[in-house]
């Protein structure tokens, strides 16, 4: 009998998901990555670590987050569907987690790891500011010093989160280099870490970067999928027929997908940022339009030109405005396990308004991409089927930017 190896058994010992992943970093960082790998293995085997993490997730983060039916959104999808079509839509409410997004699941976990390694300082990169806020929050709770790198353009778009980070005692460093967005903030955080590895842990915010970050972040975010799976069983007595999530770097998607990866009957759909269209520089959809390349320490799909220079990207959502994606998503794409699609800025903005008006939830602009994808997907699914959307974050941070975008097309609130 041949055993088909489980897709969830990766990465291998070299941090590879198939061909993807690895650790393309200067020698200076190799020791720190090894230390992190070793500490993570020890922590996973240590019941006291898991107890401490579980307690933080319960009492500080507010887990488990709810799984709730989206009745009016479902009705909306059914209104546009053929007879017998229109799946029931369910919302996995990561927007209800402390600080308003899934990012905190990872930062409390890595914060605990930093403390175990005896590192008193943490740094982070941030795009929309959600990971920065979550890192500053975990740092405050755990008594760690915190510095957050943020692209100057993002700091403008997400001013509220800059204020929150500062209130939480973090130092925010605005990065003026390159495209002044998430990619450049990541470069600066890696540079900081190269000079500060001895007393600093880098809390990377997505399933990207060199091994072991894609694995560690996926594992800490998997609490989303583990809870969702249990909640589906409890609520409608079955696995969902489909799960959908937005994909920038891909941490909320990896977190909700991973526990379902070996359940072949569950359709998994990732939604990338389609921006203003498919032309180069107009979107941030590396899985749709990119090619394998090395960015920020791992091999994965990346938007790049023919000689390997990272290409410019665009999305209305600062959290998705990134030319790369986690290596495990590249592997899932090539393996055919996860379908990746994209929605445009305009579709995401429509979904932002739709979600607010029909469900009473103002979603993050990132999440709005998943919602736009979900409404289309639900309309094509059978009526008796169940579709879970990962509501990765709430949209308070986006209200100014959304109002500006809605105004500019003449439909402002």
């Amino acid at each position: 009998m041949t055993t088909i190896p489980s897709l969830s058994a990766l990465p291998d010992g070299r941090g590879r998901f198939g061909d993807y992943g690895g650790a393309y970093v200067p020698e200076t960082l190799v020791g720190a990555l090894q230390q992190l790998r070793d500490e993570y293995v020890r922590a996973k085997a240590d019941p006291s670590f898991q107890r401490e993490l579980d307690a933080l997730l319960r009492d500080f983060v507010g887990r488990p987050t709810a799984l709730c039916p989206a009745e009016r959104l479902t009705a909306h999808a059914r209104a546009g569907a053929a007879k017998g079509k229109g799946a029931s839509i369910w919302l996995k409410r990561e927007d209800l987690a402390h600080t308003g997004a899934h990012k905190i699941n990872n930062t409390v976990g890595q914060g605990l790891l930093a403390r175990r390694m005896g590192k008193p300082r943490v740094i982070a990169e941030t795009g929309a500011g959600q990971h920065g806020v979550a890192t500053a929050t975990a740092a405050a709770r755990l008594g760690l010093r915190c510095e957050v790198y943020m692209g100057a353009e993002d700091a403008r778009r997400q001013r509220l989160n800059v204020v929150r980070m500062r209130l939480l005692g973090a130092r925010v460093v605005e990065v003026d280099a390159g495209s002044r967005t998430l990619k450049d903030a990541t470069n600066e955080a890696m540079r900081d870490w190269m000079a500060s590895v001895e007393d600093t842990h880098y809390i990377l915010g997505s399933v990207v970067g060199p091994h072991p970050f894609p694995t560690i972040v996926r594992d800490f975010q998997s609490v989303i999928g583990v809870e969702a799976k249990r909640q589906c069983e409890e609520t409608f007595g079955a696995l969902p027929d489909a799960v959908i999530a937005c994909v920038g770097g891909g941490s909320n998607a990896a977190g909700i997908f991973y526990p379902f990866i070996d359940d072949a009957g569950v359709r998994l759909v990732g939604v990338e940022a389609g921006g203003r269209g498919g032309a180069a520089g107009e979107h941030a959809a590396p899985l749709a339009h990119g090619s394998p390349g090395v960015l920020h320490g791992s091999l994965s799909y990346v938007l790049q030109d023919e000689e390997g220079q990272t290409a410019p990207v665009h999305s209305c959502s600062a959290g998705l405005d990134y030319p790369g994606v986690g290596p495990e998503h590249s592997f899932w794409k090539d393996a055919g396990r996860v379908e990746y699609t994209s929605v445009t800025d305009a579709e995401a903005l429509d979904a932002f308004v739709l979600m607010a008006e029909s469900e009473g939830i103002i979603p993050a602009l990132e999440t709005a991409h998943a919602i736009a994808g979900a409404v289309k997907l639900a309309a094509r699914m059978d009526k008796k089927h169940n579709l879970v959307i990962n509501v990765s974050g709430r949209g308070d941070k986006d209200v100014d930017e959304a109002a500006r975008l809605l105004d500019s097309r003449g439909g402002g609130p």
Partner: protein
Amino acid sequence: MSESRIETIFSTLRSEGRRGLAPFIVGGRPSVEETARLLPALQAAGASIVEVGIPFSDPIADGPVIAAAMHKALESGVHTRDVLNAVQRARSSCSLGIVAMASVSLAQRVGVARFVGEAKDAGIDGFIFPDAPLEEAPPLVEAVREVGLTASLLVAPTTPRARAEKIVGLCSGFVYLMARLGITGESAAAPEIGARVAELREMTDLPIACGFGVSKAEHVRAVVEHADAAIVGSALVRRIEDAAERGEDAAEAAGAFVRELGVGLKDAGAAA
């Protein structure tokens, strides 16, 4: 196989009891034409080897000076091919070693064998891939050896001894020792590398070149007291950028600075 140019350069230095200077420049800065002029100018000023950084959009190992110069090169439309063309034009008029410093991203995109082959055809003698550590380096090193060029991997101050032995085992031409942690950039204090170099000498006969934070003649002196060559990057790149900004001759400014650094080589090597 015949000795590579890099090997010949170091064996000549050793036989003459001298140490070398290995300045770093960003290819295509201030312009492709200037790069072609800089190479002979650096040789005339006393450089044994020059490292040419191939501009990359996301150079994570580089500090602000080099990263900004790379971004400027890319913004002005410089491609890898243009940098290689500049090397090719300068090659016939200079005998110094030319080593390409390139992100693995660039090699990966066009294919390692093709990338290395095209560089060799342009007159490149060796490679440094700053973001390819021991675990990821073997396919790159193999492709470089295949065409008879040298590959230098980096050893960091934090690299444990057993790991350093494996790294050194993959190197050819010379070993690149980082004088300090962190990214490229200028630094105030002279590096202390004596113990580390002594340790590396027990593992290998390969020459050791040392960079990161080496920014004045006094630092060069401190480095070549132990290492075979001193690598100077950001301090030189800053002077080239400043000269370009003021409308002055970049090759002249670079030559003057390298001559000034060369003072640090005087009387060195006696202990070799």
